[in-house]
């Protein structure tokens, strides 16, 4: 932890996956680092640090965002959802997670957490998305392994299961 003057420290209160968390951080600390380092939630990944790859995607107050672009002081009291909060219980998976496994939507897995959040955001907006809507909804999440093809299939499969 860097040595800061007390006036420069922020008492950050967050609700992460439904659980209240507090930590003391620099106001400009990236939400990504707060999650990974202060809260030890390492499911959210850093792929580029410049908001291009989407590996750091989380939901803040119900909206999909890149956590590498958000300073801590902008998420005071916010509701955050990360990949760790998707499964209904530690022993089960949600429909999208199951579909990713069944359809081969995850290969190396590094883009998967962000991709799952993007999938959720997409399905909230378009419960039965067209191919174009799927492509647009995932356009901010880069995957180098799959060529996206089986991620598209996984989303279609998840829709079928949910309806």
């Amino acid at each position: 932890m860097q040595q800061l003057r007390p006036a420069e420290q922020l008492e950050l209160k967050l609700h992460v996956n439904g659980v209240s968390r507090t930590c003391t951080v620099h106001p400009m600390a990236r939400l990504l680092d707060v999650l990974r380092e202060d809260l030890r939630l390492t499911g959210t990944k850093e792929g580029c640090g410049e908001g291009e790859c989407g590996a750091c995607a989380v939901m803040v107050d119900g909206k999909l965002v890149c956590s590498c672009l958000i300073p801590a002081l902008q998420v005071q009291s916010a509701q955050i959802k990360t990949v760790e909060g998707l499964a209904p219980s530690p022993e089960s998976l949600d429909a999208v997670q199951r579909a990713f496994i069944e359809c081969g939507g995850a290969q190396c897995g590094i883009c998967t957490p962000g991709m799952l959040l993007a999938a959720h955001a997409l399905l909230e907006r378009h419960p039965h998305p067209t191919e174009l809507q799927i492509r647009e909804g995932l356009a901010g999440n880069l995957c180098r392994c799959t060529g996206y093809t089986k991620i598209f299939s996984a989303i279609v499969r998840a829709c079928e299961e949910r309806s």
Partner: protein
Amino acid sequence: MKISKTLDADAIGSSPPRKEGAAKVTGRAQYIDDLHFADVVHGVTVRSSVARARIRAVHFLPGVPWEQIFVVSAADISDGGGHNAIALIEHDQPCLAGSVVNHQEEAVLLLGHPDRGIAERARNLVKIDYEPLPPIFDMDESLAQGESKAHLIWGANNLFKEFEIQKGDLQAGWAAAEIVCEGDYETGAQEQLYIEPQGMAAEWHSDGSVTVLGSMQCPYYIHKALTHLFGLPDEKVRIIQTETGGGFGGKEEYPSMIAAHAALLARKAGRPAKIIYDRIEDMVATTKRHPSRTRIRTGWLRSGQMVAQDIDFRIDGGAYMTLSPVVLSRGGLHAAGPYVCPNVRVRARAAATNAPPHGAFRGFGAPQSVFAIERHLDEVAAQLGLHPEELRARNFVHDGQTLASSQVVRDHVDMNELLARGLALSDFSRKREEFSLSNRAAQEQRGPKRRGIGLATFMHGCGFTGSGERMLGSVVAVDSDENGRIRIRASSTEIGQGTNTIFTQIAVDTLGIAADLVDVVRPDTAEVPNSGPTVASRTTMVVGRLVAEACQGLRAQLRSAELLAEGHSSADFQRACVEHHRKIGPLRATAQYQPPPNVNWDDKTYRGDAYATYGWAVYIAEVEVDLVTYETRVCDFWAVQEVGKVVHPVLAAGQIEGGVAQAVGYALYEKVVWKEGRMQNGQMTNYIMPTSMDVPRIHVDFAEVPTPFGPRGAKGIGELPMDGTAPAILNAVEHATGLRVRHIPMTPEDLMVAALAAEAAPCSN
């Protein structure tokens, strides 16, 4: 062997769920930066800002508490009794630059501090004084200067490797030729762009040993590099692979460098050290695909028979050798294509330049040379007045004929059938007609869109070239624990391609046991034998076969101990293992690679069986070009390949789809912008890989002609899709627009230049 119904879903040919899939979709999978080390020091690398220079002085400017910062230089390596080199083919690449640097971004110093922000700030406060030396950035200039000895930047003549493949009598070929065609083709560098940046962590122990964990493809490469660097015996170095977020070759050899750095820093600090590259650093400093230039000159009979083939293939290896000789080897051996030609010469050279060293990237030389030959053949077809597919059909190699390396094709191949399949699936001929007509109409009406369809036909050798597999002598071990759980031990890494799942399937298939009885041991040099690197499309075919053999060995031990009958169930097998443990002792079997008989390769003459077997493919691209913006959109894509045996249909298709997408990037988007030997666009904002909006629909079709060399006949497939995609796309663009572009990436800017040139000189060719 009887396999019960419930086991079929997990056997070879089925698509069981990814072994580590649940961990990946819940965020529980642990990549190196997810691991927390108490008391860790974060490392950053101070790098050269000039391409070639002598180091005169190093200054540490005020602004950080330098007394808290650990500094490692080249002196720390030799002072510690080690060798300042990253051991690979040669030992020419220093771990840390000593008195000279030979490329921009070369590592000079390591800095470490517990606070990442302070370490980063310190990096910017190191100032190095250089005395510049004249660099060379162009591979042909390097070859020329090297040949004349006028300007040497590496070795005696700037040449990492050179060889020639010869077949028949080229002069006789020219004499017989009725038409001669010539062309120069060029491919640019390409960044692997795994989404997880390179990262390593190291920790020393009180017994003088070191453990390194991180993102990697080849734990034993790192092991060899560190034993050499530190002068340590084998048992004092332990390398462990953490979950790896993509590799594609970019984590084949480079990790040895960052592992060495982490270990050096940990030794200096007396605490664990972690180095995680930021994206810019990863892009500009680590390896990329070798740029290439190929000159092809071919001679033909009017009937479409190729009678002479002369190929001059050059690659740019960057400042140090790394794997350039092997990339050159594969590139050279694929340069002539899946065709039979009586008279062939392939000259191959890998030149040094003062760019950061280039290295392994899926395809490993073949995407470069296949691009050239497949573009060239379309040009030849046009000149001969034949359709592109007709020209190829008249020249495909058949069983019993020889490739350029004089390898006799023994595994059955029928490229004509594959071609017919591809043409039918894509409706090729009808579309070609339709697009030609609609393009003409669009031209008359001044509409902006043009459509085209194009193909490429190619092969990819599976496993290491020539005697490579023999030299590796890969070993796999399989054992059972006291509860009858089967553990597969191999150094083959899971990097997304499905190693864990495939090995499990092979064990299930061989032993008739349930998949959840099988564990694939994490690649840890203390726990697994050396089954070779995870490269060269060898994991399923070569190592997978050893997994099967080791499993057979295990079963044989149980049988000979009379603990297992024929037609056993999974439960029977588990019980037998438990009994073996109780009554006899540990149960373990190993298998080692045996070179197959009748696969003979001569490294000196570059002649013989270059690869045990090949995957064969026909790829077809359908494109739409917009002449307002000169952008090319790949609308549709068909990938037809013969792969021996599809072990896991979902994983196999996933490999093809992912490779095609990467190759779409290689063809149209992924330009590395160079200035004075440094990548200028080393950010994901400016180095453009395809998004979900940019990839076409990809239709994958597999044919199966089992090879004797792989488990149930499986060949390698990981690199195949990288080879033929780019030329198929550019062939389609030429069909769409009549514009002839001979280099990739072909950006819209490039197509515009071709379009304007064609407008200015409408009567050429």
